[in-house]
């Protein structure tokens, strides 16, 4: 049966399995991805079935992981590397920004680096420091990288397939607190483009745009708003670089209002880019300024206050109200 209900993490696991089956050049690399199957079990069972040569436990060194993945890609491989948690991608940041992102341009197009960097990201799981961050803006600002994040199991399955097939480096942010959420995956579907946004819920009064873990919150907010008679459209952006501005623009030009929601800090976050660009594109359509709901300009706080830090239903609804009040 092609359609099954799977937890998001399991959908990723199936997607990786398919990628390994389809193409002998696909490799999985990272810390603890082998026997353990990753700390979130996303690579569970893959080393057992595909061997240590294809599912590779690496030394504990993120720069080394990405740097050697680049070398393997130069040799014709398609490495999918796992960074164990969001906060541990920074030792690899130099390799990602100065090498992975730029080598295609540097070589005038002769080199292609089909490397996927998988990063479980975001908060909400009660973790200690460095395990709950949302650093996507730090990658989206960098040309040469593509940055995406699925919000559900189907996208998890298909977007990861597409990321592996892409000849460009893709930073693949996995909403870790949604790993256990189940939804339907049709493994025989024909997926849409990797960087296209998707309308999750239609509405006429206001547009909510989000991605990854916040899509669920926005859908809940839209439902709550509906009870109060407000018709809220929800767009799952799916891609933070590039951003499907056309889809957001089309929606906003119908609703006249936009609220962007993400976990990452608002200051210099993706909401800023969306607000700036949509305001430029749809200046005369906006009834209210684009509002942003997101993290504060603060380090991710200790777990016992993370619920106050994370944008939740109430904060989204508050922004919806503020927007509608214009």
């Amino acid at each position, binding site marked *: 049966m092609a359609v099954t209900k799977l937890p998001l993490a399991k959908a990723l696991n199936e997607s990786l399995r398919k990628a390994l089956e389809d193409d002998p050049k696909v490799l999985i690399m990272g810390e603890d991805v082998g026997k353990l199957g990753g700390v979130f079990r996303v690579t569970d069972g893959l080393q057992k079935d595909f061997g240590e040569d294809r599912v590779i436990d690496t030394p504990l060194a993120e720069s080394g992981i990405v740097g050697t993945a680049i070398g393997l890609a130069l040799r014709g491989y398609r490495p999918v590397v796992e960074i164990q948690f969001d906060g541990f991608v920074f030792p690899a940041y130099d390799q990602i920004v100065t090498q992975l992102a730029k080598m295609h341009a540097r070589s005038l197009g002769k080199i292609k680096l089909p490397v996927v960097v998988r990063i479980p990201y975001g908060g909400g799981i009660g973790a*200690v420091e460095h395990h709950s961050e949302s650093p996507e803006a730090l990658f989206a600002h960098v040309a040469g990288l593509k940055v995406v994040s699925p919000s559900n199991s189907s996208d998890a399955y298909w977007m990861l397939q597409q990321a592996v097939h892409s000849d460009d480096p893709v930073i693949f942010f996995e909403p870790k607190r949604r790993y256990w959420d189940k939804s339907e995956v049709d493994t025989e579907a024909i997926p849409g483009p990797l960087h296209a946004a998707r309308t999750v819920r239609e509405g006429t009064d206001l547009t909510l745009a989000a991605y990854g873990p916040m899509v669920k919150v926005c859908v809940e907010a839209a439902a709550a708003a509906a009870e109060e008679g407000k018709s809220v459209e929800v767009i799952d952006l799916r891609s933070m670089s590039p951003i499907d501005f056309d889809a957001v623009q089309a929606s906003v030009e119908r609703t006249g209002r936009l609220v962007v929601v993400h976990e990452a800090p608002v200051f210099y976050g993706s909401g800023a880019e969306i607000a700036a660009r949509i305001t430029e594109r749809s200046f005369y359509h906006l009834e209210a300024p684009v509002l942003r709901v997101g993290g504060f300009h603060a380090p991710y706080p200790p777990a016992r206050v993370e619920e106050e830090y994370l944008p939740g239903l109430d904060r989204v609804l508050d922004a919806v109200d503020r927007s509608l009040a214009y």
Partner: protein
Amino acid sequence: MTVESTAARKPRRSGKRVSAATKPQSSEPQLVQLLSPEGERVEHPDHRIELTPEELLGLYRDMVLTRRFDAEATSLQRQGELGLWASLLGQEAAQIGSARALRDDDYVFPTYREHGVAWCRGVDPTNLLGMFRGVNHGGWDPSANNFHLYTIVIGSQTLHATGYAMGVAKDGADAAVIAYFGDGASSQGDVAEAFTFSAVYNAPVVFFCQNNQWAISEPTERQSRVPLYQRAQGYGFPGVRVDGNDVLACLAVTRWALERARRGEGPTLVEAFTYRMGAHTTSDDPTKYRHDDERAAWEAKDPIQRLHTLLQREGHADEAWFAALEEESDALAKRVRESVRAMPDPDPVSIFDNIYADGNSLVDEERAQFTAYQASFAEGGN
């Protein structure tokens, strides 16, 4: 100069067979050991130690209380009082031995597992639990006990230790610095850079690597194909492997390394060969990747048991003393349990505290908005 090469030159004065030391052809590197797994004293040509009975009892007490505290933390995690716990079970000797080699003026840069070191520095065990409970990211004042905050990003703290040690040298202070890290951490570029900087500036720092055989699910062979203590040589300073389950050897070797540092002889790498008896953290499931018999083999080398045997054989303590210690353990566990349960959640507005020392207009604005937003609920608003 490694202990290995020295050991090959000098005759051994003890008839006792000590692990690989008696097998010069062995591929196992030599291990400095002063107390055998059977609880017998062993002599070593380069390292010896003279301790009073009180000191021996002190080491034993430290290890027992640390283990008890650690077990209590693990069970507090099971009870939902902590979000996570990283147990030091099995590594008590490495931590207590090395930490008791320190003087007050020395400075410690731990990872996230150095509960035994924290204990020796005088950090209240309860304070260690804040970050694991999720009420803060580090609940103690580092300068109060010269014990830095736990560092989670693997390897980072080795550079902080090196910089701190460069500062100690600049100040001409009679002190040394110790940086703890794991076998997995040895692969991080930061650790290599710490070796480079400390060697170039001849910084008074001891790199104390607890090789507990595992970095989560990866055995040490995933990090190196030669013993880790050898890494130091290529940077121009000595590396020594010590039996990490032998508190006497850990104390002696660390003392020696700290003395070198204080004398201006620069960095040393100490590899404490030990074993992580438990899971990586309470989130980990070691049955996925390692066999029980490995653990069983290490159980026979238990650091506390061997000192217990020695104390009994040499008659330093009677049953009453051990019983009193048992009571003290219980009291510690009780105190920790109670204080953790009483630990309040932080005020949400504290999210905006301590981001900048000099203040920041954006933080002020966000704090004000947040406060107003919170108040809107209280007022029945929204």
